Each structure stands twice: as C-alpha cells, then as structure tokens.
C-alpha cells in the first residue's frame, strides 16, 4: 500500500554559535536520519521532550522547513520543503499567535477558500463557515467576533476549523492541547478523535504527554535528541515499552489515583549542540553499559511492527517472548 505521507531519512541541521562574521562554528542536529510513514486515515503520535526535534519534524512534514537532507513524499510525490500541499494542514500550539488578531473568525475560517481563488457569495461563505464552526462546537455568533474574545480552548478550535476549511486529508497537530487546562484539553482531544472517525482524517499528533497521545493515536513514535528511539502500535508501546526512555516517559504521566514512581529519569536532555557519544540517552539511562557509551545503537525491528534503538532492550524482549 502506498503511504499517504512518507518521510525518508530526513536530517535537519541549523547553524549555531556564529563567529564575528556570522559563519557558524557548530551545527545543531535538530533531526537526524528520521524516517516516518503515515497511511491514509492513520493517526501517528510523535512524542518526546522539549528540544528533541519533534516540532522541527512536524514543520518539515508540513513543508514549512526544507530539510538539509532527505525527502518528504505526499501521495508518492516529492513535496520536500513545499508548504501549501493541498490536503495537508497544520494546527499550532500557540492559538493566539496563529490567528490574526485583526481578522474576524469568519475571515480566518474562509481564508483557505479565498486563497485558492474559490468564488463564493457572502451568504454562501458565512453559511459554510458557520457549518465548520458547528463541527468544532462553536455557534454562529462567533463569526463576527475577533480572536481575543475567545478562551484558549475556543481559539484552538477556530484554528482547527480553519484547517478543516481546506478539506485536508491530514492534520499536523503540534502540541495543540499542551497549553490548555485538562478539562478543556479533554474537549479538544475528543473533537480530534471525532474528526478522525467522521472524516477519516490522518494526523501527526505531536505532544510530550504520552497519555494524550495514546488516547488519539494508532501508532506512536518516540524521539530523543533528533533521533527515533522507539516505534510501534500505541497499545503495545504504552503497555510494553521497550526503550528505557519510553519507560521513563510513561512513569512520568500524572494520573489521579496512581502513585508516581520516584524520579522516572534524572536530569534533562543534553544540548543537541553537544550530543553524547554512543547512545544519545546513555547519560540518563538506568541500564547504560560500556557499549552504550561507545556505540550508537542501530534502529532495528525487534518484532513485527515494533522498532527500537537500544542495545539493552533486546534481552528484555526475548524474555517476554513473542
């Protein structure tokens, strides 16, 4: 089956620490050798801490960044670094920054139509915009108001309505619920789950919270310092995580009535400007051995559909059996 979206061995380097003439003295490896595929109607969760490259990867997928190396294919066509692919829309984390404060909601939602040169009467435009707002749970009265008149959760839905206006087949959602209260977060997550079901929308859902990701995604991809460390079906990854980093992320999820295990992982991710030798996770890893400090683990399929990059995870899997 042909993938709707295929990212092949993508690498993104940013110049860093410019000298007096503005020439970079170092390169920041934001994304390093990542491949990813998303089928039509599939929701893939992209998980990791701040600075792991998940947002950069999302921007590469949406064509907002041109990667240093690698190819992004949409429906088999090379669209690397080209934004505005019909059918691929992005929803951003900061809802107040993503909406023009001087535009009414009707203008914001209708922009994708007008930008594509669609001819429609004013009445038609308002009617269709109202229908989209209804789909995301806002009433018609919102049409003539400005973004500042809405709460964060409502603005996030306006952003989703605008994305839907372009009739996308896929949404790239970058931390769309992390700035919201949990109660409002639940509403937006439910809305996305409904859109997945009703419209058959594919999604790349980027978040640092595994509980939210598990809820929405069929497949989960875990990133650390610009590289993939684990991939597999959501249920499997959350119930039997292979990589110690995934285990730490799971242990950190705050849940009422579940005592947190003590300090799932120590410290923070090192700077991508000075990545450690060997496995990038070894300085924080409870299982780290001499081999981990020296040798980068290969990205391998431990069982069908389950991928991991860890020297030590192998023993675990064989013990558990198929």
């Amino acid at each position: 089956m042909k993938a709707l979206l295929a990212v092949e061995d993508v690498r993104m380097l940013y110049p860093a620490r410019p000298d007096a003439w503005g020439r970079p003295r170092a390169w920041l490896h934001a994304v390093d050798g990542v491949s990813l595929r998303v089928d039509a109607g599939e929701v893939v969760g992209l998980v990791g801490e701040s600075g792991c490259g998940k947002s950069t990867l999302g921007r590469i997928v949406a064509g907002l960044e041109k990667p240093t190396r690698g190819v992004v294919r949409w429906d088999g066509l090379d669209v690397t670094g080209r934004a505005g692919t019909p059918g691929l829309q992005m929803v951003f984390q900061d809802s107040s920054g993503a909406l023009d404060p001087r535009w009414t909601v009707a203008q914001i939602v209708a922009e994708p139509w007008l930008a594509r040169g669609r001819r429609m009467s004013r009445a038609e435009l308002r009617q269709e915009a109202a229908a989209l707002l209804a789909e995301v749970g806002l009433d018609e009265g919102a049409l003539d108001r400005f973004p500042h008149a809405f709460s964060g959760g409502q603005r996030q839905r306006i952003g989703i309505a605008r994305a839907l206006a372009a009739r996308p087949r896929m949404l790239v959602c970058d931390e769309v619920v992390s700035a919201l209260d949990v109660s409002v977060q639940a509403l937006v997550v439910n809305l996305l789950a409904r859109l997945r079901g009703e419209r058959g929308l594919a999604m790349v859902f980027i978040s640092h919270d595994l509980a939210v990701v598990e809820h929405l995604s069929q497949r989960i991809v875990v990133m650390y310092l610009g590289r993939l460390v684990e991939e597999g079906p959501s249920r499997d990854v959350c119930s039997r995580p292979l990589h110690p980093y995934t285990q730490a992320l799971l242990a950190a999820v705050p849940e009422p009535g579940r005592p947190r295990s003590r300090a799932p992982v120590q410290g923070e991710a090192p700077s991508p400007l000075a990545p450690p030798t060997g496995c990038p996770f070894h300085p924080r890893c409870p299982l780290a051995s001499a081999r981990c400090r020296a040798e980068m683990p290969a990205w391998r399929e431990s069982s069908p559909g389950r991928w991991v990059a860890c020297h030590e995870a192998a023993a675990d899997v064989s013990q558990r059996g198929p």
Partner: protein
Amino acid sequence: MGAPLLSFEGFTLELATASGWLRVLDGIDLRVGEGESLALVGESGSGKTLCAQSVTRLLPLHHARCTSGAVRLSGVDVFKAGERDLRRLRGAVAGHVFQEPAAALNPAMRIGDQVLEALRLHRPSEARHAEAVRWLARVGIPAPEDRARQFPHELSGGLQQRATLAIALAPRPRLLVADEPTTALDVTVQAQVLELLAQARAELGMAILLVTHNLGVVEGIADRVAVLYAGQVVEHGPTADVLARPLHPYTRALVASVPRLGQATDRLGALPGSVPAPGAWPTGCRFQPRCPQARASCGEASPPWNAARLAHGARCPFATEEAAT
C-alpha cells in the same frame, strides 16, 4: 492546637474594574497548618490564583479589597496589615513559586546573585556565595557553581523553575505557595519538580499551598484538596478520598478529564462550556448550567455546604446520592 499558619476565614475579595468593584472570591474558608499541604484545584477563571496571591497580598490595595472575612498568615490579617509588616511575611514566612519561571527571574542578574539576594533580605547571617550555591545544588541543579554565574536565559525551563524554587526555599519559609509550578514543563521534568517539592517539604518541614488545574499532579504532594469553582470552594477533603470518591459533579468531571494510560474508553470525560466570569455567576448553584445532574431546584437557592463524610464535604445537596449511583 493554636491558630493555623494560614487561614482563609469567609474571605471575600473584590477587584476594581472599569464598571466598578467586582466580586471574584466568595466566602473562602480554608486552613493550612504548619507542615501541612493543601492543593487548590480548578479551571482557568475559578479564582485559584487569586487565592494564592492573597496569601501575602500580592494584589495592590487600590485594585483589590477584602469586603468580608480575612486572610490570616501567621496571625497577621494581610488585608489590614501595613506594607512593612507584609514585607516581613513575604519570602520569610511564605515563599512563592510561579508558573512562568522566565517571568519570575530577573533577566539581568546572575542566578547565584538572585539566591544571595533572598538570603541577604531574610537570613543575613547566611548570606554568602557558597550558601547560595549550596541551595542551587539542593534543588538538583547540576554543576551549581557554574550555573550560579549564568543568567536566566542560559538555563532551560526546568532549570529555571528549580532556580526560582531555590530562591523561594533559601529563606526557609514556613509556607511555600506554588502556583502552577509545573504547567509549563515537560512531563518528565514535571515529575522531577513535583518530587523535589515533596522532598523539600519533608526536609524543611514547611507547609505547601499548591495551585493546579490538573488533579493528576496532586497525588503524593497534597494531604488535602480544595476544588474551586466560580469563586467558591465546591469540594474539600483528603486527597485520596477526593480522587477516589469525589462528591461534587464538577470534581467528578475534572477527575474524568485527565487522560489515563491504557484507558479503553474512546472519549475523555469532557465538560462543555467554561467557568462563568465574575459578575455573570448564575443564581443558585453556580455549576448548575454545566452540571449533567442538575435539577430544577438547583437554580433556586445557593446550595449549602454538605458535610457528607468525615472531613470531606461539597457544595452540593445531592452529593452523596449521586456518588452512590
């Protein structure tokens, strides 16, 4: 038992707006004893941050007034106390940690100097650079000697929050007011900061007032939970009891909205709508327009406090019967 360290006694707060004084907190009754830990939980707009800011009256008097009741910190009525008395309370008796560490830190001052400043103000005898570095080490900042010489922008969000914690803890306050201290952080760092709070409480024996919108984080930190809605406390009880057997429909909705791992359900328990703004509070029960179990009588009179269980009550007359079904 003497007077508690912190008490809200029927505390009612009004804020100045363009159209006059507006009531934002309504008859808050809460107590925090020495070494105790209380979590204030609610959505944006419920009034939880105003409660936290009232502890040392961080609100200017020409914008905020207490119309009835009082907030007492260490015996001092903070809305009647003068600025000099308050300055003695702030930092020394009650320290604050805020949601945005980047906004709380002075961008033009080295991290070590900011800790030193807190010591100089409240513990002059300990005001030495080495002592400031020791506090940075205590809150888990690696290479504290180097970090002390850095400016806030050189630190990650997690390290910045640890630094604000070091500043708040250095004067050894009897109460730490933590207002959404982990909301802006990654889940892994959030877990570390929460553990640090619990550890600091155990070592220093201080009390904690934790403000959060996420009921998932109160476990292991707070002894008791108070749920706020539209300026009122709607439920109050021991943490484990509130989480396992919530009385108020609002608390039940908040518990259900937290996504859990391995949860088979397709939908999260979501609560449509938002907290009514001050000035637009409905008559009767303020939660009644959003309440899935609302009855006709709920809109008539304000529901009285229903002390349904031992030390655990809610502002809902049907609390126990609904919970039983």
